């Protein structure tokens, strides 16, 4: 091998490593439950929040396209706001995962809602935390 090719290969490798590192740090999304989020919310950080849509909390305003609801894991409750109609599988008492940011005004601003069949998410009880974890895992970002 000529030194030129070795140097070239190293340059490519370094560039690739840098791109991956930069890509990960800039687009990391943290998976959290409502309790984890309320314990240490960081405004502006990208989160994927998984939990149950609290029954009775859902409000939809077709004129302004404001969708508000709260998400809970049995211990903590997080208010969520979204602009736009809810996706098909979304509903009260069902599991959902929302992606977005925590705002300094004390609510979660969702940019993307992913909903899930409720049969795969049971009502919160003792093991609720483990279950929201599981729920999040079953919900890798689908269509956006």
């Amino acid at each position, binding site marked *: 091998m000529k030194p030129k090719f070795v140097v070239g290969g190293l340059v490519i490798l370094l560039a*690739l490593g840098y791109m991956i590192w930069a*890509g990960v740090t*800039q687009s*990391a*999304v943290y998976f959290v439950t409502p309790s984890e989020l309320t314990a240490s919310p960081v405004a502006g950080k990208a989160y994927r929040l998984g939990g149950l849509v609290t029954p009775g909390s859902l409000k*939809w305003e*077709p004129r302004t*396209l404001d969708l508000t609801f709260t998400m809970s894991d049995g211990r903590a409750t997080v208010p969520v706001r979204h602009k736009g*109609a809810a996706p098909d599988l979304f509903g009260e008492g069902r599991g959902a995962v929302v992606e977005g940011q925590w705002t300094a005004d004390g609510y979660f601003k969702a940019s993307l809602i992913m909903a899930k069949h409720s049969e795969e998410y049971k009502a919160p009880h003792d093991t609720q935390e483990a279950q929201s974890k599981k729920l999040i895992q079953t919900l890798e970002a689908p269509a956006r």
Partner: protein
Amino acid sequence: MIPELGTGALLVALALCLYGAVMAGLGARRGRTAYVESAQHAALAVFVLVTTCILLLVYAFLTFDFSVRYVATNTNLGTPFYYRITAVWGALEGSIVLWSWMLTLYTLVVVLRHRTSARELYPWVLSVMLSVIAFFLLVMTVAAPVFARSMPIPADGRGLNPLLEDSGMITHPVALYLGFTGFTVPFAFAIAALVTGRIGDFWITTTRRWTILAWYFLSLGLLIGGWWSYHVLGWGGYWAWDPVENAAFMPWLTGTAFLHSVMIQERRRMLRLWNLALVVLTFSLTLFGTFLTRSGVIASVHAFTQGAIGVFFLSFLALVVLTSLALIAWRWDALGAQGVLDSVVSRESAFLLNNVLLVAAAFTVFFGTVFPLLSEAVRGIKVSVGAPFFNQVNVPLFLSLIFLMGVGPLIAWRRASLDNLKRNFLWPVLIGVVAALVFRLLGVRSTFAVLCLALTLFVGATIAVDLIRATRARRAMGERTLPALGGLLLRHNRRYGGFIVHLAVLVVAVGVTGSQAWSVHTETTLQKGEQTELAGYRVRFDGLRETPESNHGKVTGFFTVVAGRGTGDVLEPAKKFYPQEQSPIAYVDYRLGFIDDLYLVLGDFARDGSHATIKMQVNRMVSWIWIGGLVLTLGTLLAVLPERRKAT
């Protein structure tokens, strides 16, 4: 009856597969043709048996035989005829059946084509193919038993996943699986080459068409998958860097690298080790993809199953990788390169760089896909990287690849002289640079779009330069322009087939660029009779209608285009309500165009039809992606035509 018949056939097929795999190997070692012929008969019998299984399954679906659990969970009395056939591969168990059947089909073709032409390698190829089939048959009988009985027999089935009630479901899985399974053939030849020690170029030249075919079907599968996502899922996109998509994209990337690197081996006797590694990697990635999507490790839209299957696939994957590595280590001394790289500015290094970039892209996709698992295992917190990561990392790689697509086919072998560079690239580079400036002046903001379009024109120009020059040379010999061009394409079908495939990639690239850079969308609630406007299209909401369908209810919204292209057209996006599902499924409507698509999704609505929320998108140049698929088909057809003699 059917569960017992099917299971029986599968077990016999499994036994025959194992027998054939062993006999073919023994026959090769001891030089006994009778053994190999016996293995051949076993392979034929396996084909017949697996075909019978798939036909039994089709029959069970058509006759609503709910004693088969798979039928009961994937269809019901209301499922239309057409979708009862596609339901055969609508879920995990059936898709494994389809996969195995294609493998047996490929094995049959290998037997027919290569039993005399590839003497030394053939018995081992047969042995490897039968072993792979045996694995899938094992999965079908143990991990995901497709013919399991339902107890008690239900009166009606659960029904097919409504998202799969689409015409894309007949072509998408078939094309994708033909691609996945197709890579088994070059893999089997590579293993046979390693075992026999005939690691020269024979296995490469023999499998050239196989690789092209597998690559083509995989490409087609990906494109049809994009089309399905675009017109069924209702989010207006065709690619989401979803783990399932990535699972199919990774072998495509390494397969593309393989397709190019074999040319270097054929021509310059280099990269022997690299080629073997690439084909093993590609085959392993097809298995890894199935593991990812079917084990529930990283679930997503497509990953509708979880179970024992993960362990099976991971074990087989480990077996494949370790065996291949051991064989490569065994033949290490013979694998040294014979040719050497002479210069950085040469066709060899352009191809080499193309390979490095493609494998790098495959690695980044792999890394991003398994990142949540890694971070969970290492740091205990689940962190994912979404589409922004994949785009950010891959865009520079893909732009470089497009550039190399222009350089590679024209630059000289060994060492390109300044004269060679000037002769081939002066005009294309000028055209690319001028195009970039013009796009900037025209007000194209996105640097990505400017670069991609300029590079596309550069590559297009290199293809034109080559064609014009070759046609001129023929005309100088007295031929007319058109016959000269036609003769050129047919006589050098491999080269020009490749060029047309490159052209297809450019067309797809333009579609992706256009849709990423210029698509617009809005969401709004309209009262009956009210209008909304987006990018020159004005749409009026005319009300709702509720209709019963064979297996679901449907609420359709009527939207009339009152200004813009297609004025007067009525778009009918709907929501379908399936009794077996708790939530409605959106049914999008669209008008496709060369420049842009109008795309409507019915969001929320008032039951009385007084108002409805609509998601409206104007997606630019998406059609180019589908057109690219057609061009790709033409190019591939030309490339796999039997080669003509070079002498004129």
